[in-house]
């Protein structure tokens, strides 16, 4: 099995040693090219700082405030804003999707409305969000909400539709109340789909957060980057991108962990 894992469709068998050597080469290629271009002076340092310069900037931003706060505060501001917007999308989207999956009439009412605004790119809500809720906390929250809402609704809806009607009927025949059916049959049945929807929506929500911070707020990683860009400080811009990448990665890892935990608990999904 392990061996088959290293067999590509081309039929070439790749040994573990060769795999790691190539992976290492890939990482070195990336950082090597970057460092080479920066150090050789092919691009001016204010366009592309070297990897070490970016690292120094990160260390410095950790201690000295830039754009009003130290790095950790920007990071926390972004994470907090993301969690609030995403929680709102999950809290409204999942129940709505489940209800749409169970009650045909709700499905028929909501789906056309949903479809008619689905294609409005989340970031296109920015001016309206600023008008309605200001640029402080409400505006960005609406953007994150809009960005992550659709996958929540769709995954819960699909999950509810995938529950076998026979299971519901069986539970009802055995005298389960409406609440019991919901709690013991429908929600667990829809869970695998919901969990994978959560991952998609968190990714999109994080992305929308970055977009909204580039445009409307006064703290957070996106804001840090915009301020860096305004000062032509590419090292600060890249330092912001690294933070965004790490948090985005961490969110995905956590949700993958939850997904794996659910799979173990409720059998295969």
């Amino acid at each position, binding site marked *: 099995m392990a061996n088959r894992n290293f067999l590509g469709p081309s039929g070439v068998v790749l040994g573990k040693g060769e795999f790691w050597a190539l992976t290492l080469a890939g990482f070195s290629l990336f950082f090597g090219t970057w460092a080479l271009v920066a150090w050789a002076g092919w691009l001016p340092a204010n366009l592309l700082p070297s990897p070490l310069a970016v690292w120094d900037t990160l260390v410095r931003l950790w201690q000295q405030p830039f754009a009003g706060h130290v790095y950790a505060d920007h990071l926390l501001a972004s994470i907090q804003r993301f969690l609030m917007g995403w929680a709102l999308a999950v809290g409204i989207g999942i129940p709505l999707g489940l209800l749409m999956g169970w009650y045909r009439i709700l499905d028929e009412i909501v789906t*056309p*409305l949903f479809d008619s605004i689905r294609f409005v790119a989340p970031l296109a809500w920015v001016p309206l969000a600023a008008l309605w809720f200001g640029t402080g906390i409400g505006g960005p929250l609406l953007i994150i909400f809009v960005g992550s809402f659709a996958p929540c609704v769709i995954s819960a809806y699909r999950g509810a539709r995938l529950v076998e009607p026979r299971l519901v009927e069986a539970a009802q025949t055995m005298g389960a109340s409406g609440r019991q059916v919901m709690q013991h049959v429908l929600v667990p049945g829809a869970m695998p789909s919901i969990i994978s929807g959560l991952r998609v929506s968190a990714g999109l929500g994080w992305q929308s957060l970055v977009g909204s911070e580039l445009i409307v707020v006064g703290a957070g990683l996106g804001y840090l980057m915009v301020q860096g860009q305004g000062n032509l400080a590419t090292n600060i811009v890249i330092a912001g*991108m690294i933070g965004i*990448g790490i948090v*985005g990665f961490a969110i995905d890892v956590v949700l993958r962990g939850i997904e794996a935990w659910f799979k173990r608990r409720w059998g295969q999904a």
Partner: protein
Amino acid sequence: MVGVATVASALALWWLATSGLRLLNPLRLPAPHEVWTALRQIMGSGYAGATLWEHALHSLGLVARGFLVAVVTGVPLGLLMGWSRRAEALINPIFLLLRPIPALAWIPLAIVWFGLGDTGKVFVIWLTAFVPSVINSFTGVRNVDTVLIAAARTQGASTAQVLRHVVIPGSMPMIFTGLRLSLQASWTTLVAAELVGAFFGLGRVLNIAGQDIFPGMILVGMAAVAICGAGSTWLLGRLERRVLNWRAAV
């Protein structure tokens, strides 16, 4: 039937809340006739430096360019990584590093590198669509049934023939899934990039309308973004049906 009724009643509610009963401040939500006025203004004399057609065509052109470059560069790379474990081992680290960074986060860097003109926008759209193109082509190749490849081999097919007749057609459905996702994402990126700074385009319309506190024009801009996004997705769907028409026969 219910669908038409709900959309109609939502529109009626909108009219009632804004013009009919004046429940909402027109600076928060414009009345239908204000949106109509804004639409006529931007279609006729123009707004934010151009008419609606010019803004929309400009945005469409940027998305088309960035998206095409991403497909042309991303799909072959993904196919290569899917086909060869060696290429995968070598190239995957770069994706591990770049993939968690959303394309939107590249916008400030793109502005420093390329300024506020078209190049920076094509660059971020390329980034948006490139990663899903690579990943889905890669997954597509890996999902091709190895028995089919072995069968083609046994019958004496060369590597080029296996690629041409088995691997690439087999990964097409997955590739198109990636393209559909990345096309939608491209529009989000473009709007964000144009909101951050641009001379033309639908995002520019939204930006100026936001600054002017012109809610009617904001809604026109949002609707235009939605129509362009839906229209380009529809075009891609037609292309997909043409390319994948063999699937119906299977």
